[in-house]
């Protein structure tokens, strides 16, 4: 009798604990992200890049001018690069001034997080001949070409032949 009572009590305790432990799952896998154009950071070199278009974790972002922070967008939580079309010294983003660029860091957001991802000299990599900037890997470059085929960028093998690189 006593053992049965203890057994039931034990089951109750364990099931309660299990409920407590398992019942607090995330209801969302979404996060909220802004992009900051930090290419005017006073502590760093200032290449005049305007962020014309961007894509991060399933969401397209709007244009972000130099020194500005864009609107907040809902994205899928997780890890990924920021893919961008940047325009050199052209706030109007004319295609002949644009290049495919990705963030240097694989950026992360976790469910429910609101985060501003900062893009600046240390956090970008592009196709032009290295000038202290990491060359963009082929898979990232091709991803940008798939996202924005209308820009008709050169294939990866000829990435340095893009118009902006030749300027």
């Amino acid at each position, binding site marked *: 009798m006593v053992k049965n009572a203890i057994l039931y009590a034990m089951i109750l305790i364990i099931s309660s604990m299990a409920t407590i*432990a398992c019942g607090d799952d995330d209801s969302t896998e979404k996060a909220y992200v802004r992009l900051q154009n930090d290419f005017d*950071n006073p502590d760093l070199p200032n290449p005049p890049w305007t962020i014309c278009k961007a894509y991060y974790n399933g969401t397209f972002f709007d244009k972000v001018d130099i020194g500005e922070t864009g609107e907040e967008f809902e994205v899928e939580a997780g890890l990924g690069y920021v893919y961008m079309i940047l325009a050199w010294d052209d706030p109007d983003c004319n295609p002949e001034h644009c290049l495919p660029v990705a963030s240097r860091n694989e950026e992360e957001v976790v469910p429910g997080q609101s985060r501003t991802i900062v893009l600046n000299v240390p956090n970008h990599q592009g196709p032009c001949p290295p000038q202290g900037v990491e060359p963009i890997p082929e898979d990232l470059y091709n991803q940008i070409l798939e996202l924005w085929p209308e820009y008709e960028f050169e294939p990866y093998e000829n990435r340095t032949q893009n118009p902006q690189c030749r300027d």
Partner: protein
Amino acid sequence: MNPTLIILLLALLTEGAFPDSGTKPETRPGPDAPPSNTEKQSKKPGSKEKSSLSKSKNKPVKESSKKAGGKEKSSTPYETRSSAESKTSGDGRARQNKKSAPPEDVESDPPEDAESAPSIQETVVTARPSPGKDHTAAVTSVKGSNIRRSTRTSTIEALSQESAGIYVPGRGVGFHGVAGGASGAIHIRGLGGSPNSQVLVVENGVPDAQGIFGHPIPDAYVPFLIDEVRVVMGGDSVLYGSNAVGGVIIIRDRWRTTRGWELNNETAFGSYNTIKETVSFLGRWKSFDLAAAFHARKSDGHRDGAGGANKVANLTVRWRINPKLNLTLRNKAIHLSGTDPGPITHPNDDHWYDVLRDNFYLKLDWDKEWFQLHVVSFANIGIHRLYDGFFSLDTTAGGFGEWKVKVLDNLRFLLGVGTEWLNGHVENRIQNEVFPVETFGNVSSYGQIDYRPHSSVHLVAGGRLMYNTKFGGVIMAKAGATWEPWRGFFLRSRFTRNFRQPTLRELYLPFPTANPDLQPEISHNWDFSVTWEHKKLKLSATTYYSSVKNLIKYFGAWPSAEVVNIDKVEVFGVEGLAQLKNLGPLGFKITGNWQDVGRYTKQNPDAKINFQMDARHRHKNHSFLGTVSGEWVHGLYMNNYKRDPLPNVFFIDMSLRYRYRYASGSSLEPYIVLRNILDNRYAYIEGYLMPGFNIMAGIKTTL
């Protein structure tokens, strides 16, 4: 070299009694739980310790009497164990203890010469659970002698060998190092890691951590004086405070329990010009006890830059003011130096580190029939220097008082108050830059109720209220139960709510960024175990779930990195243990762990298995011991989200020991340790290949 053949050969050559591996059950039952068969056989034992000190020390251990080790149905649950213990007073050691040593220390290890005797059954001398501790916690208990005999190159790696729920990566021949490129991150059931601030190390009752980075230094623990290490799986911030999130590693040093002295020396030399020298001295005179030890280890390392040198010295003095009251003073000094060799693809030139630390405590223990009082004051100071100009001076100081009282025969309370203060100074001596750090501290009160409504049931509940000068109040709680419905069959479950306070680095230091507004991490841990223990077989299975909220996490990189309280870690896993014992000269133990750690896969493997096989033989004054042990780690990644996978880790180690004991009680014990006998190429950390086949040989002398 084929280890199976060697073991078979050993088995053929050996005969006689064989003890278990010396590791206590992972699921620790209540204090009056029936001892294992091994314990039953040897719990008469005090005779074991006696044998080591008397002329009869080389005689086989006699069968124990029921009184000493068997399960006794006493009138009250708490009396069961104490009565059993009191009945061991038939031997010399117990009588001696009864006269002069305070009860808390009666369980201290026997003299070194006895504890390391290969043919002596070991689990018997492991202490009973202390009255103030949580008997419902899942505990892996390892004797100090087992750690000293381990084939693994550091104390925390030796703990990892004993339980698959503990994961400790290495990077070489026993030097874990500090700062960049360091190894030795301790994961317990998927929590912890780098830094180790989610795992708390408690040394002789005193929390031990580097004050600025808030984590233990893996190289600081050497087993020269260790009596026992208990790893509390699942954390316990109620009893131990901050950082006891994933688990608590409780190290307890040994004392000599009879009048006289003993001197132990161990000298070893091995591959890569590795030299180890350890000397310890324990004495007991009139009302004073002394434990002193020095350890030095030096190696060139298995590759350029992988060498180092560790020196650890310890001096502890205890004044037995009267049989119930004693005062203990202890100082431990550590000097660690070495280099981070860097990954093999990008080796470093000279990334050196130099660490000097000193730990000090003063403890007063008052032990009466119905209550115990412990008052402790401690300080932990360290100076760290790195090749890049980093210099830090950190201090941790605090104290606590703990009162354990037996209200009824089946009801006990533990009440405590404690405080801890952290401070530090950090600068870069190359760039002449000082990084300001603000002192913060906390005060807390805590309590625990230990209730036994029935001889087979044990219930524990507790709570801690802490106020921190930086982030205010935090409440911790826990509840657990054990039940033994049938003899040898245990059910156990426990729930704990734990916390980790932010470190000074996370709050103030720009490495790469800081956030003074951080709040503590909060964890909820739950586990459930089933254990069945038979004369020759023990089986145990545990399932666990942990969730850490308010996770302190770094995002981005310099110069736009940030550190915030965000996200949570969720870990679900199962552990298992199978142990064969009393099979003539052989013993075998295997532990396994599988876990799902979600996206936090960085150095947090999916599965791990540890195994060990022993063969022992004893003939007159001669003893032989052979062990084969190994580890397999699967699902290891260098980064979160299962990125950068590493090949499975697998290696087998082996050791052979011979011991000759003189009639005077002195002994000589030459040994050889063969590591990675299959010469496997493996790495826990990408680019830090572990050594291939290597050897260490030494001799241990006991006077």
